[in-house]
Protein backbone atom coordinates (compact mmCIF):
# COMPACT_ATOMS: atom_id res chain seq x y z
CA UNK A 1 0.00 0.00 0.00
CA UNK A 2 2.92 2.28 0.32
CA UNK A 3 5.42 3.69 -2.09
CA UNK A 4 6.83 6.81 -3.58
CA UNK A 5 4.26 7.76 -6.14
CA UNK A 6 4.48 9.81 -9.28
CA UNK A 7 1.85 11.65 -11.16
CA UNK A 8 1.19 10.70 -14.73
CA UNK A 9 -0.99 12.77 -16.95
CA UNK A 10 -3.06 11.86 -19.94
CA UNK A 11 -3.43 14.24 -22.83
CA UNK A 12 -7.18 14.51 -22.67
CA UNK A 13 -8.79 17.61 -24.12
CA UNK A 14 -10.35 19.68 -21.35
CA UNK A 15 -13.83 19.95 -22.77
CA UNK A 16 -14.07 16.23 -23.54
CA UNK A 17 -12.88 15.44 -20.07
CA UNK A 18 -15.56 17.52 -18.41
CA UNK A 19 -18.27 15.81 -20.41
CA UNK A 20 -16.94 12.34 -19.68
CA UNK A 21 -17.00 12.43 -15.90
CA UNK A 22 -20.19 12.12 -13.86
CA UNK A 23 -20.28 15.04 -11.39
CA UNK A 24 -20.85 12.57 -8.54
CA UNK A 25 -17.19 11.56 -8.90
CA UNK A 26 -16.18 15.09 -7.95
CA UNK A 27 -18.29 14.73 -4.80
CA UNK A 28 -16.55 11.42 -4.11
CA UNK A 29 -13.18 13.03 -4.81
CA UNK A 30 -13.93 15.74 -2.23
CA UNK A 31 -15.10 13.19 0.33
CA UNK A 32 -11.97 11.07 -0.17
CA UNK A 33 -9.81 14.19 0.25
CA UNK A 34 -11.61 15.27 3.40
CA UNK A 35 -11.33 11.88 5.05
CA UNK A 36 -7.95 10.65 3.81
CA UNK A 37 -6.02 13.62 2.39
CA UNK A 38 -5.70 11.85 -0.99
CA UNK A 39 -6.51 14.20 -3.88
CA UNK A 40 -7.33 12.86 -7.30
CA UNK A 41 -6.74 15.71 -9.72
CA UNK A 42 -9.16 16.36 -12.56
CA UNK A 43 -7.09 14.47 -15.11
CA UNK A 44 -6.99 11.49 -12.77
CA UNK A 45 -10.69 11.42 -12.04
CA UNK A 46 -10.96 8.52 -14.45
CA UNK A 47 -8.77 6.52 -12.04
CA UNK A 48 -11.16 7.32 -9.24
CA UNK A 49 -14.08 6.43 -11.50
CA UNK A 50 -12.40 3.10 -12.36
CA UNK A 51 -11.88 2.33 -8.67
CA UNK A 52 -15.50 3.20 -7.91
CA UNK A 53 -16.56 1.06 -10.88
CA UNK A 54 -14.85 -2.00 -9.44
CA UNK A 55 -16.46 -1.42 -6.04
CA UNK A 56 -19.87 -0.82 -7.63
CA UNK A 57 -19.58 -4.14 -9.43
CA UNK A 58 -18.81 -5.90 -6.13
CA UNK A 59 -21.70 -4.20 -4.36
CA UNK A 60 -24.12 -4.40 -7.24
CA UNK A 61 -24.73 -0.65 -7.28
CA UNK A 62 -26.14 0.54 -10.59
CA UNK A 63 -25.22 4.20 -10.69
CA UNK A 64 -22.48 6.44 -9.23
CA UNK A 65 -25.23 8.18 -7.26
CA UNK A 66 -26.28 4.89 -5.69
CA UNK A 67 -22.64 4.18 -4.82
CA UNK A 68 -22.37 7.66 -3.26
CA UNK A 69 -25.24 6.72 -0.95
CA UNK A 70 -23.41 3.54 0.05
CA UNK A 71 -20.25 5.54 0.73
CA UNK A 72 -22.00 8.05 2.92
CA UNK A 73 -24.80 6.18 4.69
CA UNK A 74 -24.36 4.23 7.91
CA UNK A 75 -23.82 1.39 8.57
CA UNK A 76 -20.74 0.28 6.72
CA UNK A 77 -19.59 3.58 5.25
CA UNK A 78 -16.18 3.45 6.97
CA UNK A 79 -15.54 -0.04 5.67
CA UNK A 80 -16.58 0.93 2.16
CA UNK A 81 -14.34 3.98 2.17
CA UNK A 82 -11.43 1.75 3.14
CA UNK A 83 -12.21 -0.58 0.24
CA UNK A 84 -12.30 2.39 -2.12
CA UNK A 85 -8.97 3.74 -0.83
CA UNK A 86 -7.46 0.31 -1.46
CA UNK A 87 -8.78 0.42 -5.00
CA UNK A 88 -7.46 3.87 -5.83
CA UNK A 89 -3.99 3.41 -4.37
CA UNK A 90 -3.53 -0.07 -5.84
CA UNK A 91 -0.65 -0.31 -8.28
CA UNK A 92 1.17 2.62 -6.72
CA UNK A 93 3.82 0.27 -5.43
CA UNK A 94 6.88 0.23 -7.60
CA UNK A 95 10.52 1.18 -7.42
CA UNK A 96 11.40 4.73 -8.55
CA UNK A 97 7.75 5.73 -8.54
CA UNK A 98 8.48 9.41 -7.92
CA UNK A 99 11.46 10.94 -9.67
CA UNK A 100 10.65 14.43 -8.28
CA UNK A 101 11.03 13.09 -4.73
CA UNK A 102 14.34 11.43 -5.61
CA UNK A 103 15.56 14.65 -7.28
CA UNK A 104 14.57 16.77 -4.29
CA UNK A 105 16.36 14.36 -2.03
CA UNK A 106 19.61 14.20 -3.99
CA UNK A 107 19.79 17.70 -5.44
CA UNK A 108 18.44 19.88 -2.63
CA UNK A 109 18.03 18.07 0.67
CA UNK A 110 21.20 15.97 0.88
CA UNK A 111 23.57 18.86 0.14
CA UNK A 112 21.76 20.86 2.81
CA UNK A 113 21.91 18.11 5.46
CA UNK A 114 25.55 17.36 4.65
CA UNK A 115 26.42 21.05 5.01
CA UNK A 116 24.51 21.27 8.28
CA UNK A 117 26.17 18.21 9.81
CA UNK A 118 29.61 18.87 8.47
CA UNK A 119 31.05 19.72 11.87
CA UNK A 120 29.72 16.59 13.57
CA UNK A 121 32.23 13.85 14.31
CA UNK A 122 29.94 10.98 13.33
CA UNK A 123 28.61 11.50 9.86
CA UNK A 124 25.42 9.53 9.93
CA UNK A 125 22.21 9.73 7.87
CA UNK A 126 19.04 7.98 9.03
CA UNK A 127 16.04 7.57 6.77
CA UNK A 128 12.80 5.96 7.86
CA UNK A 129 10.52 4.31 5.36
CA UNK A 130 7.38 4.10 7.52
CA UNK A 131 4.80 1.65 6.17
CA UNK A 132 7.33 0.21 3.76
CA UNK A 133 5.01 -2.51 2.45
CA UNK A 134 7.05 -4.86 0.24
CA UNK A 135 10.19 -2.73 0.26
CA UNK A 136 10.11 -0.89 -3.08
CA UNK A 137 10.45 2.57 -1.56
CA UNK A 138 13.08 1.47 0.96
CA UNK A 139 15.36 -0.01 -1.72
CA UNK A 140 14.82 2.99 -4.00
CA UNK A 141 16.10 5.22 -1.21
CA UNK A 142 19.03 2.90 -0.45
CA UNK A 143 20.12 2.72 -4.11
CA UNK A 144 20.04 6.49 -4.45
CA UNK A 145 22.09 6.90 -1.31
CA UNK A 146 24.62 4.42 -2.70
CA UNK A 147 24.80 6.57 -5.82
CA UNK A 148 25.94 9.43 -3.61
CA UNK A 149 28.36 7.31 -1.58
CA UNK A 150 31.36 8.38 -3.63
CA UNK A 151 30.33 12.02 -3.74
CA UNK A 152 28.19 13.85 -1.21
CA UNK A 153 28.04 10.96 1.23
CA UNK A 154 31.65 9.88 1.08
CA UNK A 155 32.62 8.75 4.58
CA UNK A 156 29.02 8.74 5.80
CA UNK A 157 27.05 5.92 7.39
CA UNK A 158 23.62 5.59 5.84
CA UNK A 159 20.81 3.63 7.38
CA UNK A 160 17.34 3.04 5.93
CA UNK A 161 14.98 1.93 8.67
CA UNK A 162 12.02 0.22 7.03
CA UNK A 163 8.94 -0.76 9.02
CA UNK A 164 5.51 -2.16 8.28
CA UNK A 165 2.59 -3.50 10.28
CA UNK A 166 2.22 -6.57 8.10
CA UNK A 167 4.59 -9.49 8.80
CA UNK A 168 4.14 -10.99 5.36
CA UNK A 169 5.01 -7.70 3.65
CA UNK A 170 8.14 -7.43 5.75
CA UNK A 171 9.23 -10.95 4.74
CA UNK A 172 8.63 -10.20 1.05
CA UNK A 173 10.55 -6.96 1.44
CA UNK A 174 13.53 -8.75 2.97
CA UNK A 175 13.72 -11.10 -0.01
CA UNK A 176 13.88 -8.10 -2.37
CA UNK A 177 12.68 -9.97 -5.46
CA UNK A 178 10.67 -7.95 -7.99
CA UNK A 179 8.93 -8.53 -11.30
CA UNK A 180 8.37 -6.35 -14.35
CA UNK A 181 5.50 -4.38 -12.86
CA UNK A 182 7.38 -3.25 -9.76
CA UNK A 183 10.42 -2.49 -11.92
CA UNK A 184 8.58 -0.59 -14.67
CA UNK A 185 10.09 2.78 -13.68
CA UNK A 186 13.58 1.47 -12.91
CA UNK A 187 16.18 2.43 -15.51
CA UNK A 188 18.55 -0.10 -17.10
CA UNK A 189 21.40 1.64 -15.32
CA UNK A 190 19.95 0.86 -11.88
CA UNK A 191 18.85 -2.64 -12.91
CA UNK A 192 22.35 -3.56 -14.04
CA UNK A 193 24.11 -1.97 -11.12
CA UNK A 194 21.96 -3.01 -8.18
CA UNK A 195 20.07 -6.18 -9.18
CA UNK A 196 20.92 -9.78 -10.00
CA UNK A 197 18.81 -12.02 -12.21
CA UNK A 198 16.58 -14.57 -10.51
CA UNK A 199 14.87 -15.88 -13.63
CA UNK A 200 13.52 -14.50 -16.90
CA UNK A 201 10.93 -12.35 -15.21
CA UNK A 202 12.43 -11.48 -11.85
CA UNK A 203 15.33 -9.51 -10.46
CA UNK A 204 16.69 -9.48 -6.92
CA UNK A 205 18.21 -6.56 -5.04
CA UNK A 206 21.96 -7.08 -4.52
CA UNK A 207 23.40 -7.61 -1.01
CA UNK A 208 25.19 -4.24 -0.94
CA UNK A 209 21.81 -2.50 -1.21
CA UNK A 210 20.20 -4.79 1.35
CA UNK A 211 23.03 -4.02 3.75
CA UNK A 212 21.76 -0.46 4.06
CA UNK A 213 18.18 -1.41 4.92
CA UNK A 214 16.81 -2.97 8.10
CA UNK A 215 13.25 -4.28 7.90
CA UNK A 216 11.08 -4.82 10.95
CA UNK A 217 7.47 -4.97 12.01
CA UNK A 218 6.09 -1.85 13.66
CA UNK A 219 2.63 -0.58 14.44
CA UNK A 220 2.67 3.21 13.94
CA UNK A 221 -0.02 3.46 16.61
CA UNK A 222 2.13 1.78 19.24
CA UNK A 223 3.16 4.86 21.24
CA UNK A 224 5.84 3.16 23.31
CA UNK A 225 7.63 1.77 20.25
CA UNK A 226 7.30 5.05 18.36
CA UNK A 227 9.30 6.73 21.10
CA UNK A 228 12.34 4.66 20.12
CA UNK A 229 12.42 5.77 16.49
CA UNK A 230 14.40 8.92 17.20
CA UNK A 231 17.12 10.75 15.28
CA UNK A 232 15.67 10.55 11.76
CA UNK A 233 16.84 12.93 9.03
CA UNK A 234 14.08 11.95 6.65
CA UNK A 235 10.78 10.14 6.99
CA UNK A 236 8.78 8.74 4.07
CA UNK A 237 5.26 7.61 4.83
CA UNK A 238 3.36 7.26 1.58
CA UNK A 239 -0.31 6.29 1.36
CA UNK A 240 -0.35 4.88 4.88
CA UNK A 241 -2.00 7.59 6.96
CA UNK A 242 -4.94 7.71 4.59
CA UNK A 243 -6.39 4.72 6.44
CA UNK A 244 -6.21 6.35 9.87
CA UNK A 245 -8.96 8.36 11.51
CA UNK A 246 -8.26 11.99 12.37
CA UNK A 247 -7.20 11.45 15.99
CA UNK A 248 -4.82 8.54 15.27
CA UNK A 249 -3.42 10.36 12.25
CA UNK A 250 -2.71 13.43 14.31
CA UNK A 251 -0.97 11.35 16.99
CA UNK A 252 1.24 9.53 14.47
CA UNK A 253 2.19 12.79 12.78
CA UNK A 254 3.19 14.28 16.14
CA UNK A 255 5.42 11.26 16.68
CA UNK A 256 7.00 11.80 13.26
CA UNK A 257 7.67 15.43 14.11
CA UNK A 258 9.36 14.46 17.38
CA UNK A 259 11.34 11.64 15.73
CA UNK A 260 12.77 13.93 13.06
CA UNK A 261 15.97 15.84 13.63
CA UNK A 262 15.79 19.61 13.34
CA UNK A 263 16.10 20.48 9.66
CA UNK A 264 14.62 17.07 8.69
CA UNK A 265 11.94 16.39 6.07
CA UNK A 266 8.77 14.35 6.02
CA UNK A 267 7.36 13.07 2.70
CA UNK A 268 3.87 11.76 2.00
CA UNK A 269 2.57 10.18 -1.22
CA UNK A 270 2.55 12.57 -4.17
CA UNK A 271 -1.19 13.17 -4.14
CA UNK A 272 -1.49 13.09 -0.37
CA UNK A 273 -1.91 15.99 2.04
CA UNK A 274 -1.22 16.37 5.75
CA UNK A 275 -4.24 18.68 5.79
CA UNK A 276 -3.92 20.91 8.83
CA UNK A 277 -3.19 18.17 11.33
CA UNK A 278 0.13 19.60 12.44
CA UNK A 279 0.92 23.28 12.64
CA UNK A 280 4.60 22.82 13.48
CA UNK A 281 5.65 21.33 10.16
CA UNK A 282 6.32 23.83 7.37
CA UNK A 283 4.79 22.88 4.04
CA UNK A 284 7.59 23.26 1.47
CA UNK A 285 7.75 22.90 -2.32
CA UNK A 286 10.51 21.34 -4.41
CA UNK A 287 10.27 21.03 -8.19
CA UNK A 288 7.39 18.61 -8.79
CA UNK A 289 6.88 17.56 -5.19
CA UNK A 290 5.95 18.83 -1.76
CA UNK A 291 7.26 17.88 1.67
CA UNK A 292 6.98 18.91 5.30
CA UNK A 293 9.97 20.47 6.98
CA UNK A 294 10.94 20.58 10.63
CA UNK A 295 12.86 23.87 10.64
CA UNK A 296 16.47 23.79 11.70
CA UNK A 297 17.34 25.57 14.93
CA UNK A 298 19.40 28.21 13.16
CA UNK A 299 16.62 29.02 10.68
CA UNK A 300 14.75 30.71 13.54
CA UNK A 301 11.44 29.47 12.11
CA UNK A 302 10.41 27.02 14.79
Amino acid at each position, binding site marked *: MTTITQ*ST*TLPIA*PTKRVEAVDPVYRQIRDLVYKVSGIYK*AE*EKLYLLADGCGRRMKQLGSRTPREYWDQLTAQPGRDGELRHLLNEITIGETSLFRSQPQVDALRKVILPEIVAEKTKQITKRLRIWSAGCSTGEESYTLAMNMLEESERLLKGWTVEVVATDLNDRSVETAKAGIYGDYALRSTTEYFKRKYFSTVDEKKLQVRPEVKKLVTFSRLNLQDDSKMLFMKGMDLIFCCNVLIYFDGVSKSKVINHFFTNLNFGGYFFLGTSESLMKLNEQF*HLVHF*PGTIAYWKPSLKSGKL
Partner: protein
Amino acid sequence: MTASVAAMIRERVQNIETMPAIPAVFLPLLKLLGNASEDVKLDEVVRLVSYDGTIAGQCLRVAGSPLFGLAKSPESIKGAVLSLGLRRVETILLTCCLGQAFPAKTWVLDPAVFWRHSLGCAMVCRKFSEKLAAVDGEKAYMAGLLHDIGFMVNCLVFPKEFAVAMERACREEIPLDEAERATMGFTHCETGRALAEKWKLADDVIEVIANHHAIEQSQKAQPWVALVHLSDLLCRMRGLGYGYYERHMVDLMADPAWAILLKEHRDLGGVDLVRFTFELDEAVEDIHALVAAVFGSAGQTACPQ
Protein backbone atom coordinates in the same frame (compact mmCIF):
# COMPACT_ATOMS: atom_id res chain seq x y z
CA MET B 1 21.71 48.40 -10.17
CA THR B 2 23.19 51.81 -10.67
CA ALA B 3 21.33 54.76 -12.15
CA SER B 4 23.57 54.65 -15.21
CA VAL B 5 22.67 51.01 -15.95
CA ALA B 6 18.99 51.89 -15.62
CA ALA B 7 19.45 54.80 -18.02
CA MET B 8 21.34 52.56 -20.46
CA ILE B 9 18.53 49.95 -20.45
CA ARG B 10 15.89 52.64 -20.94
CA GLU B 11 17.78 54.17 -23.81
CA ARG B 12 18.38 50.86 -25.57
CA VAL B 13 14.74 49.86 -25.18
CA GLN B 14 13.51 53.25 -26.44
CA ASN B 15 15.80 53.33 -29.43
CA ILE B 16 16.23 49.80 -30.58
CA GLU B 17 14.86 49.45 -34.07
CA THR B 18 14.02 45.80 -33.73
CA MET B 19 11.83 46.41 -30.69
CA PRO B 20 8.48 45.29 -31.98
CA ALA B 21 5.30 47.26 -31.86
CA ILE B 22 2.63 45.55 -29.88
CA PRO B 23 -0.40 44.67 -32.07
CA ALA B 24 -2.85 47.56 -31.91
CA VAL B 25 -5.62 45.45 -30.38
CA PHE B 26 -3.51 44.28 -27.44
CA LEU B 27 -3.77 47.23 -25.07
CA PRO B 28 -7.50 47.83 -25.62
CA LEU B 29 -8.03 44.10 -25.04
CA LEU B 30 -6.12 44.28 -21.78
CA LYS B 31 -8.19 47.27 -20.69
CA LEU B 32 -11.35 45.34 -21.40
CA LEU B 33 -10.38 42.55 -19.04
CA GLY B 34 -12.42 43.03 -15.92
CA ASN B 35 -13.72 46.45 -16.92
CA ALA B 36 -17.07 45.82 -18.50
CA SER B 37 -20.04 43.52 -18.17
CA GLU B 38 -19.93 40.24 -20.09
CA ASP B 39 -22.36 41.45 -22.80
CA VAL B 40 -20.48 44.65 -23.50
CA LYS B 41 -17.22 42.77 -23.43
CA LEU B 42 -18.32 40.27 -26.02
CA ASP B 43 -19.33 43.00 -28.47
CA GLU B 44 -16.17 44.98 -27.77
CA VAL B 45 -13.89 41.99 -28.19
CA VAL B 46 -15.53 41.10 -31.49
CA ARG B 47 -15.24 44.72 -32.67
CA LEU B 48 -11.59 45.05 -31.65
CA VAL B 49 -10.48 41.79 -33.17
CA SER B 50 -12.19 42.55 -36.46
CA TYR B 51 -9.50 45.24 -36.98
CA ASP B 52 -6.75 42.67 -37.05
CA GLY B 53 -7.30 39.83 -39.50
CA THR B 54 -4.09 38.00 -38.56
CA ILE B 55 -4.95 37.83 -34.89
CA ALA B 56 -8.56 36.86 -35.61
CA GLY B 57 -7.42 34.09 -37.98
CA GLN B 58 -4.92 32.71 -35.54
CA CYS B 59 -7.45 32.79 -32.74
CA LEU B 60 -9.96 30.81 -34.81
CA ARG B 61 -7.30 28.29 -35.78
CA VAL B 62 -6.42 27.69 -32.14
CA ALA B 63 -10.07 27.60 -31.06
CA GLY B 64 -10.72 24.95 -33.70
CA SER B 65 -7.72 22.82 -32.71
CA PRO B 66 -8.29 19.42 -31.09
CA LEU B 67 -7.28 20.95 -27.76
CA PHE B 68 -10.74 22.34 -27.19
CA GLY B 69 -12.60 19.35 -28.53
CA LEU B 70 -15.23 21.32 -30.45
CA ALA B 71 -17.23 19.25 -32.92
CA LYS B 72 -17.02 22.04 -35.50
CA SER B 73 -14.43 24.79 -35.91
CA PRO B 74 -15.91 28.19 -35.04
CA GLU B 75 -16.29 30.48 -38.06
CA SER B 76 -16.23 33.76 -36.20
CA ILE B 77 -14.84 35.22 -33.00
CA LYS B 78 -18.39 35.46 -31.70
CA GLY B 79 -18.90 31.79 -32.47
CA ALA B 80 -15.67 30.95 -30.67
CA VAL B 81 -16.78 32.92 -27.61
CA LEU B 82 -20.15 31.18 -27.59
CA SER B 83 -18.51 27.75 -27.78
CA LEU B 84 -15.51 28.27 -25.52
CA GLY B 85 -16.47 31.13 -23.25
CA LEU B 86 -15.18 34.67 -23.24
CA ARG B 87 -12.39 34.02 -20.77
CA ARG B 88 -10.76 31.32 -22.85
CA VAL B 89 -11.02 33.34 -26.05
CA GLU B 90 -9.46 36.35 -24.31
CA THR B 91 -6.57 34.18 -23.21
CA ILE B 92 -6.07 32.91 -26.75
CA LEU B 93 -6.24 36.44 -28.17
CA LEU B 94 -3.74 37.92 -25.74
CA THR B 95 -1.37 35.03 -26.29
CA CYS B 96 -1.64 35.43 -30.06
CA CYS B 97 -0.93 39.17 -29.78
CA LEU B 98 2.18 38.71 -27.70
CA GLY B 99 3.30 35.83 -29.89
CA GLN B 100 3.07 38.09 -32.90
CA ALA B 101 4.99 40.88 -31.19
CA PHE B 102 7.89 38.57 -30.48
CA PRO B 103 8.56 36.18 -33.34
CA ALA B 104 10.21 32.92 -32.32
CA LYS B 105 13.44 33.38 -34.27
CA THR B 106 14.66 36.11 -31.95
CA TRP B 107 14.49 34.02 -28.80
CA VAL B 108 17.23 32.87 -26.46
CA LEU B 109 14.67 31.33 -24.15
CA ASP B 110 12.39 28.78 -25.85
CA PRO B 111 9.17 30.73 -26.55
CA ALA B 112 7.00 27.70 -25.71
CA VAL B 113 8.66 27.48 -22.29
CA PHE B 114 8.29 31.22 -21.74
CA TRP B 115 4.60 31.25 -22.65
CA ARG B 116 3.80 28.24 -20.53
CA HIS B 117 5.31 30.03 -17.56
CA SER B 118 3.55 33.31 -18.29
CA LEU B 119 0.15 31.71 -18.88
CA GLY B 120 0.70 29.45 -15.88
CA CYS B 121 1.45 32.41 -13.66
CA ALA B 122 -1.58 34.28 -15.02
CA MET B 123 -3.78 31.28 -14.27
CA VAL B 124 -2.41 30.85 -10.72
CA CYS B 125 -2.91 34.57 -10.03
CA ARG B 126 -6.52 34.22 -11.11
CA LYS B 127 -6.97 31.06 -9.03
CA PHE B 128 -5.56 32.83 -5.98
CA SER B 129 -7.88 35.74 -6.57
CA GLU B 130 -10.84 33.36 -6.58
CA LYS B 131 -9.90 32.46 -3.01
CA LEU B 132 -9.47 36.08 -1.93
CA ALA B 133 -12.66 38.06 -1.81
CA ALA B 134 -11.35 41.52 -2.65
CA VAL B 135 -8.98 40.76 -5.53
CA ASP B 136 -9.90 41.55 -9.12
CA GLY B 137 -9.26 38.28 -10.93
CA GLU B 138 -8.82 39.78 -14.38
CA LYS B 139 -6.29 42.30 -13.19
CA ALA B 140 -4.46 39.50 -11.39
CA TYR B 141 -4.48 37.48 -14.61
CA MET B 142 -3.02 40.34 -16.59
CA ALA B 143 -0.30 41.01 -14.01
CA GLY B 144 0.67 37.33 -14.10
CA LEU B 145 0.66 37.18 -17.88
CA LEU B 146 2.95 40.18 -18.26
CA HIS B 147 5.24 39.86 -15.23
CA ASP B 148 8.19 38.42 -17.18
CA ILE B 149 8.06 40.49 -20.38
CA GLY B 150 11.58 41.60 -19.48
CA PHE B 151 12.81 38.25 -20.80
CA MET B 152 11.52 39.22 -24.23
CA VAL B 153 13.46 42.47 -24.02
CA ASN B 154 16.56 40.53 -22.96
CA CYS B 155 16.23 38.30 -26.00
CA LEU B 156 15.95 41.26 -28.35
CA VAL B 157 18.20 43.87 -26.80
CA PHE B 158 20.79 41.86 -24.87
CA PRO B 159 20.81 38.46 -26.61
CA LYS B 160 24.48 37.61 -26.00
CA GLU B 161 24.49 38.68 -22.37
CA PHE B 162 21.21 36.90 -21.70
CA ALA B 163 22.46 33.70 -23.36
CA VAL B 164 25.34 33.67 -20.87
CA ALA B 165 22.93 34.13 -17.96
CA MET B 166 20.65 31.39 -19.28
CA GLU B 167 23.53 28.99 -19.74
CA ARG B 168 24.72 29.61 -16.19
CA ALA B 169 21.23 29.17 -14.71
CA CYS B 170 20.84 25.82 -16.49
CA ARG B 171 24.30 24.61 -15.62
CA GLU B 172 24.15 25.56 -11.95
CA GLU B 173 20.39 24.94 -11.63
CA ILE B 174 19.90 28.31 -9.96
CA PRO B 175 17.03 30.80 -10.34
CA LEU B 176 17.27 32.74 -13.59
CA ASP B 177 17.13 36.16 -11.93
CA GLU B 178 20.09 35.17 -9.76
CA ALA B 179 22.08 34.18 -12.86
CA GLU B 180 21.11 37.44 -14.62
CA ARG B 181 22.27 39.47 -11.65
CA ALA B 182 25.55 37.56 -11.46
CA THR B 183 26.42 37.75 -15.15
CA MET B 184 24.63 40.85 -16.50
CA GLY B 185 24.40 43.03 -13.41
CA PHE B 186 20.68 43.59 -13.97
CA THR B 187 17.60 41.42 -14.49
CA HIS B 188 14.48 41.03 -16.62
CA CYS B 189 12.73 43.14 -13.97
CA GLU B 190 14.63 46.25 -15.06
CA THR B 191 14.38 45.57 -18.78
CA GLY B 192 10.70 44.66 -18.34
CA ARG B 193 10.04 47.94 -16.58
CA ALA B 194 11.58 49.89 -19.49
CA LEU B 195 9.31 48.12 -21.99
CA ALA B 196 6.24 48.43 -19.78
CA GLU B 197 6.85 52.18 -19.49
CA LYS B 198 7.30 52.44 -23.25
CA TRP B 199 4.03 50.58 -23.75
CA LYS B 200 2.39 52.77 -21.07
CA LEU B 201 0.99 49.82 -19.13
CA ALA B 202 -0.95 50.52 -15.91
CA ASP B 203 1.15 51.62 -12.92
CA ASP B 204 0.34 48.54 -10.83
CA VAL B 205 1.42 46.26 -13.65
CA ILE B 206 4.67 48.17 -14.08
CA GLU B 207 5.24 47.77 -10.35
CA VAL B 208 4.72 44.00 -10.61
CA ILE B 209 7.05 43.68 -13.61
CA ALA B 210 9.73 45.75 -11.90
CA ASN B 211 9.65 44.24 -8.41
CA HIS B 212 8.38 40.67 -8.45
CA HIS B 213 11.84 39.46 -7.42
CA ALA B 214 12.45 42.27 -4.92
CA ILE B 215 9.21 42.81 -3.12
CA GLU B 216 10.85 44.99 -0.45
CA GLN B 217 11.61 47.58 -3.14
CA SER B 218 7.98 47.87 -4.07
CA GLN B 219 6.60 51.22 -2.94
CA LYS B 220 3.02 50.93 -4.11
CA ALA B 221 0.88 47.98 -5.17
CA GLN B 222 2.72 45.67 -2.77
CA PRO B 223 -0.13 43.13 -2.49
CA TRP B 224 -0.16 42.80 -6.31
CA VAL B 225 3.58 42.29 -6.38
CA ALA B 226 3.23 39.73 -3.57
CA LEU B 227 0.48 37.85 -5.39
CA VAL B 228 2.53 37.56 -8.58
CA HIS B 229 5.71 36.70 -6.67
CA LEU B 230 4.00 33.76 -4.93
CA SER B 231 2.27 32.56 -8.10
CA ASP B 232 5.56 32.75 -10.00
CA LEU B 233 7.29 30.60 -7.36
CA LEU B 234 4.48 28.07 -7.32
CA CYS B 235 4.55 27.74 -11.12
CA ARG B 236 8.29 27.15 -11.09
CA MET B 237 7.81 24.37 -8.53
CA ARG B 238 4.99 22.67 -10.48
CA GLY B 239 6.32 22.09 -13.97
CA LEU B 240 5.68 25.59 -15.35
CA GLY B 241 9.12 27.07 -14.80
CA TYR B 242 11.86 27.95 -17.26
CA GLY B 243 12.42 24.43 -18.53
CA TYR B 244 15.28 23.38 -16.25
CA TYR B 245 15.58 22.02 -12.72
CA GLU B 246 15.80 24.75 -10.09
CA ARG B 247 17.71 23.40 -7.17
CA HIS B 248 15.88 25.01 -4.29
CA MET B 249 13.21 24.66 -1.68
CA VAL B 250 10.33 27.10 -1.49
CA ASP B 251 8.56 27.80 1.78
CA LEU B 252 5.68 29.94 0.49
CA MET B 253 4.07 30.64 3.82
CA ALA B 254 7.38 31.83 5.31
CA ASP B 255 8.04 34.12 2.32
CA PRO B 256 7.69 37.85 3.16
CA ALA B 257 5.23 38.08 0.24
CA TRP B 258 2.84 35.73 2.05
CA ALA B 259 2.76 38.02 5.10
CA ILE B 260 2.19 41.08 2.91
CA LEU B 261 -0.70 39.43 1.08
CA LEU B 262 -2.15 38.03 4.29
CA LYS B 263 -2.11 41.46 5.91
CA GLU B 264 -4.22 42.79 3.05
CA HIS B 265 -6.39 39.68 2.57
CA ARG B 266 -7.07 37.76 5.77
CA ASP B 267 -8.84 35.00 3.81
CA LEU B 268 -5.45 33.86 2.47
CA GLY B 269 -4.98 32.13 5.83
CA GLY B 270 -7.86 29.78 5.01
CA VAL B 271 -6.41 28.58 1.70
CA ASP B 272 -5.50 24.87 1.68
CA LEU B 273 -2.20 25.30 -0.12
CA VAL B 274 -1.67 21.60 -0.79
CA ARG B 275 -5.02 21.19 -2.45
CA PHE B 276 -4.43 24.46 -4.28
CA THR B 277 -1.17 23.00 -5.60
CA PHE B 278 -2.84 19.78 -6.74
CA GLU B 279 -5.57 21.78 -8.46
CA LEU B 280 -2.94 23.79 -10.28
CA ASP B 281 -1.52 20.54 -11.68
CA GLU B 282 -4.89 19.96 -13.33
CA ALA B 283 -4.34 22.97 -15.57
CA VAL B 284 -0.75 22.22 -16.56
CA GLU B 285 -1.68 19.95 -19.46
CA ASP B 286 -4.18 22.52 -20.77
CA ILE B 287 -1.49 25.18 -20.76
CA HIS B 288 0.99 22.96 -22.57
CA ALA B 289 -1.65 22.25 -25.22
CA LEU B 290 -2.67 25.90 -25.61
CA VAL B 291 0.90 27.03 -26.09
CA ALA B 292 1.55 24.22 -28.58
CA ALA B 293 -1.56 25.27 -30.50
CA VAL B 294 -0.54 28.95 -30.64
CA PHE B 295 3.16 28.50 -31.28
CA GLY B 296 3.17 25.21 -33.13
CA SER B 297 6.13 23.80 -31.28
CA ALA B 298 6.46 22.69 -27.69
CA GLY B 299 10.06 22.84 -26.58
CA GLN B 300 10.93 20.74 -23.56
CA THR B 301 13.90 22.71 -22.40
CA ALA B 302 15.06 26.28 -22.43
CA CYS B 303 18.68 25.36 -21.92
CA PRO B 304 21.29 25.79 -24.61
CA GLN B 305 22.10 22.36 -26.05
